């Protein structure tokens, strides 16, 4: 029978699996339970942090069956990402998507859990959310969920669009074993930092706080509509916050000029960019706005 749209779609999906499959590798970095990884640069593999249980003697198996030794180049438990350095350059670098995942879009989950070949399952992008706390002490700005099946050993492998580009990195290590995907733009950014610094820095202030409503009069004083802020209910001794002059009773409303309405947003703001730097923190003190400079510490 002649080709029709169904056959064309079927061929396109197989092409996408083949293309992205070449950039999907087997990562042997823990006992007995291999996982997957993505060729991120000619000598670098992006994978999930939780599947890397040793720093040296890591074996990576390529699509053509060749085995290449690797060592850990950087890792971030918070986002469950790790970068491995290969002992020799390889081909078939993964192509990250230029258009972010859209709700309802078809997406292939790819993995190479064994040396026998690529494995795939098809689903649709069923949710795009974030920011969320990852349960591993990190914060993920955005995440993707799909309704596809994740087979064992899929962590570290790619979520692939119908054109074969990578939408993100799949892991079961962020949400109590459920599969989530770290969007490619975020994963690639984290990987860049891991290559340069070996780790992701997380900022530390040393305050305890709770979300409170900001009275209308104070909002007026702030000259913006910001419904909530963080009431500081405790400041640790000798902490960056205490050295900078934050006190109990201040309502924290912004970090580095960006409004902070909830704890999660404070978490997001306190990333590697502010660690070790004098950072303006806007508070309401006695109903009046003040800016206090705090040298953010590292957690």
């Amino acid at each position, binding site marked *: *029978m002649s080709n*029709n*749209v*169904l*056959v064309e*779609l*079927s*061929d396109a*999906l*197989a*092409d*996408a*699996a*083949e293309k992205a*499959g070449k950039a999907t590798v087997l990562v042997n970095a823990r006992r007995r339970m291999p996982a997957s990884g993505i060729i991120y640069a000619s000598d670098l593999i992006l994978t999930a942090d939780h599947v890397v249980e040793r720093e040296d003697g890591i074996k990576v198996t390529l699509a053509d069956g060749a085995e290449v030794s690797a060592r850990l180049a950087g890792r971030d438990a918070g986002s469950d990402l790790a970068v491995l350095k290969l002992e020799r350059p390889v081909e078939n670098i993964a192509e990250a998507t230029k258009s972010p995942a859209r709700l309802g879009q078809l997406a*292939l989950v790819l993995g190479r859990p064994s040396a*026998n*070949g*690529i*494995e*795939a*399952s*098809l689903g649709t992008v069923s949710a795009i959310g974030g920011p969320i706390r990852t349960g591993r002490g990190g914060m993920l700005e955005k995440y993707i969920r799909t309704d*596809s*099946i994740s*087979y064992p050993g899929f962590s570290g492998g790619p979520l692939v669009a119908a054109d074969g580009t990578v939408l993100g990195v799949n892991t079961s290590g962020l949400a109590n074993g459920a599969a989530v995907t770290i969007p490619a733009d975020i994963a690639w950014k984290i990987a860049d930092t891991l290559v340069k610094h070996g780790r992701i820095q997380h900022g530390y202030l040393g305050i305890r706080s709770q979300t409170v409503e900001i009275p209308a009069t104070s909002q007026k004083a702030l000259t913006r509509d910001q419904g909530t802020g963080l009431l500081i209910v405790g400041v640790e001794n000798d902490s960056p916050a205490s050295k900078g002059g934050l006190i109990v009773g201040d309502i924290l409303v912004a970090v580095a000029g960006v409004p902070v309405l909830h704890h999660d947003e404070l978490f997001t703001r306190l990333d590697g960019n502010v660690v070790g730097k004098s950072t303006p923190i806007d508070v309401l003190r006695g109903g009046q706005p003040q800016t206090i400079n705090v040298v953010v510490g590292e957690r």
Partner: protein
Amino acid sequence: MNFNGTFTQVIDELVQRVMPALVIVRGHRFGAGSGIVWDANGLILTNNHVVGRRTPIVILQDDREYESKLLARDPDVDLALLSIDASGLTPLQPAPVSPRVGEMVFAFGHPWGQRNTVTRGIVSALVSAQNRRGETLPVVRSDAPLAPGNSGGPLVNAKGEVDGINAMIIGGDQSVSIAASVATEFVTKVLAKRKAEERTPADVI
């Protein structure tokens, strides 16, 4: 691109083409499985584990029921070939090449006794299963949902060609189908052997 309902149309056409070749294989005591019309003159392929101790009854799409003859069964590949006294049936063709990971597949069968269901998936992996003799058997794993009663039914590609014979008993909780190449080889062997046996009496004299 505007598909204007062409997907629904081509899937409908696929179902209309494949469904006539899907049969019910019912044992005399236990539940039913699925089977595939393998040629126009009444050859029916199913799983060995669907066939009980007595030869099963085969029910066609038009509800005609047939007592079947068991031509051959092989537990090592979990296949059985039945024959019914019918002609002019619509058989399926095995895919000429082995499937690619990622290609679309549709599983036809009667899961949990629900007649004539279609489930969609893609080929997840091309792997080997070990049979009880320790031999390796090429199988197609897919993410199309299968349930008891799907056994013996076809896993077809987007063209309606058979990629595999569904046999979830092999894969435990995973959707596994015996590769079409295994089925073709099994049927060819059985038919060749029968032909040889038919000739034998004359040869002996």
